[in-house]
């Protein structure tokens, strides 16, 4: 087990290194002076140029430059944004939590809907309820996220006026930013009307979360259904029935765990899709997340921001995937070591 964890961590480190390399390649691939792209200073005087060359080791060999780049990444000096002039680490620290928060709620919502529905469909395989759930999931899977988001806005915000169109919380509430996770920040703050602020934040959150989670929940539903059907047709389930256990006992004791175990890493893979969809949805709902920020950066040709944003998002995805993989391996009894039982 230890070797397995070490091997995974080794892989993680290597992947991160390659990501860093790719982002460093971006510095040179973007138009303009590499030093400007690194530092985020758009107009460089000769004096500054000499200083920055020395700071970023751009006058030395490539390997030397790259090692310096890694060092600076580690120290938290990611350069500054062309547009705002703020340090990129601070900007990302502001915007990334909003995206993670949105993604987390969407993932939780998708799991809450996807797994029970998929399980139900798998148990009722070949019956009407199975087919109706399946066709619903096909529908949900085929709907483009941006269109769905616009429809939701049109119906719930404009037509019915129940929910706000955009933003994260009403401007009336002044929440001091601490972690960037709005729910936590509201609870941690000492404003008077916490409850109203929470309700307001939730109402802002509802539509974006729903529009992201519909696609993901249909995918999770399909995976669960598939896994349940496979497990239910396996020999040990039939053997369990032959032991005379009730369907309930068979499903809960043997079906559930075996069906859910293989889904866990697949769900983790969905996090990538979720994040991509979240970026689109953030733009539509003006959600102040990293996706929205990154797309703005692309529009404004803010090269340092694009580089740092890409790096941050991809590191997040990679770390999350490896983390889920490790948890899965720790909890999967099939991975445990063999031992000899004597006759």
């Amino acid at each position, binding site marked *: 087990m230890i070797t397995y964890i070490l091997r995974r961590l080794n892989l993680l480190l290597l992947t991160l290194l390659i990501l860093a390399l790719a982002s460093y390649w971006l510095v040179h691939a973007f138009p303009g002076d590499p030093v400007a792209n690194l530092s985020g200073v758009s107009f460089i005087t000769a004096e500054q140029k000499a200083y920055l060359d020395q700071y970023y080791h751009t006058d030395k060999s490539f390997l030397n430059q790259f090692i310096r780049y890694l060092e600076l990444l580690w120290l938290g000096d990611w350069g500054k944004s062309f547009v705002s002039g703020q340090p990129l680490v601070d900007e990302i620290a502001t915007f990334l939590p909003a995206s993670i928060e949105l993604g987390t709620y969407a993932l939780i919502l998708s799991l809450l809907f996807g797994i029970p529905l998929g399980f139900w469909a798998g148990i009722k395989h070949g019956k009407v309820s199975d087919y109706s759930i399946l066709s619903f999931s096909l529908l949900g899977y085929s709907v483009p996220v941006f269109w769905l988001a616009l429809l939701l806005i049109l119906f719930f915000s404009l037509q019915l006026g129940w929910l706000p169109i955009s933003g994260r919380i009403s401007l009336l509430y002044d929440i001091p930013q601490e972690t960037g996770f709005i729910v936590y920040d509201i609870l941690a703050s000492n404003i008077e009307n916490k409850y109203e602020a929470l309700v307001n934040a939730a109402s802002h959150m509802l539509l974006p979360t729903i529009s992201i989670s519909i696609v993901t929940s249909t995918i999770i539903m399909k995976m669960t259904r598939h896994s349940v059907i496979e497990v239910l047709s396996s020999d040990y389930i*039939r053997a369990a*029935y032959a032991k005379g256990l009730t369907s309930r006992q068979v499903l809960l004791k043997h079906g559930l765990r075996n069906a859910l175990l293989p889904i866990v890493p697949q769900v983790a893979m969905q996090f990538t899709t979720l994040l991509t969809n979240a970026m689109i949805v953030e733009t539509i709902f003006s959600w102040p997340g990293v996706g929205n920020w990154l797309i703005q950066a692309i529009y404004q040709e803010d090269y340092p921001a694009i580089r740092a944003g890409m790096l941050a998002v991809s590191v997040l995805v990679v770390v999350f995937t490896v983390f889920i993989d490790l948890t899965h391996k720790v909890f999967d009894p099939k991975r445990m070591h*063999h031992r000899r039982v004597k006759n």
Partner: protein
Amino acid sequence: MPLLDIKNLTLEIETTNGWVKALDKISLTIAPKEIRALVGESGSGKSLIVKAIVGAINEGWRLTADRLNWGGKDLLMLSDEERRQITREDIAVIFQNPTHSLDPTATLGEQLEEAIPDHLIGKGWYWERRQRRNEIVASQLHKVGIKEHDACVSSYPHQIPDDICQKFMIAMALASEPKLLIADDPTKGMETTTKIQILKLLSRLNETKELSILFVSHDLLAIASLAETMTVLYCGQTVESGRLMQLRRRPLHPYTKALLDSAPSFRKDLLPKTELNALEGTIPTLQNLPAGCRLGPRCPRAQKECVKMPEVRYIQNHYYSCHFPLHRYK
């Protein structure tokens, strides 16, 4: 009254070529205290019969039978709950492929415990019942020859070797103290000493606890040492059935003769370096079943009439279905 009475059991499976009879009019009876062997090549439908008896067949398969009676009750007419009760208390199965028939994510202990019916545990406080359950688990494992029961119950199926897994399956089947044990190739892949141990255990249980056994296997030696009666199966059809001694001495169906001849250790008069007998060809696939008697294309005695399914005929208790049995038309 026979314990289990099956008459004309037919199981149809849907394939790409339409519905196919995987089991075609199987008849089988097991009396109390009887050990009946069910013999046939791989793919002859032995395991399907086992699954049909305990109701563990796939959804969408069509099962029909003139009779499928358990102690006088028609299993096909019973409600799910009543049928479950019977499979829980009276019938136990040792499945083929022990590693596939055990839940890979549950420990062996959990799986053995859930096979023990409540009436064996009795009433009492939670810890008393737990204590009792552990005792039963340990004693069952000792009976089948697993000495380290503690290590065994805390293991997962993939952690222990196949032969112990097989023994564990037997322990699990016997835990409910059933009236009928259906053993689907229980000695598969075991070395001879272990095999003898298991066969001895089964015959002892048969004598002391009046356990009836349906012994499914193609190991003729094991069958000869254990069973009294035998049913021979070929490609989903019952070919011949009767007392084992009778069948051995005078097989009436060409297939039974071929089967007995193909086992060298069964023939005492075999000289060294004699060519071994075997039927030409292989068992047909489900998609290409011959009409009538399914042995037809491979049968040395086949004639025109064999495209019609032969009637079941009998001499005393010896049943066979063949147009040209070995004692006639020499």
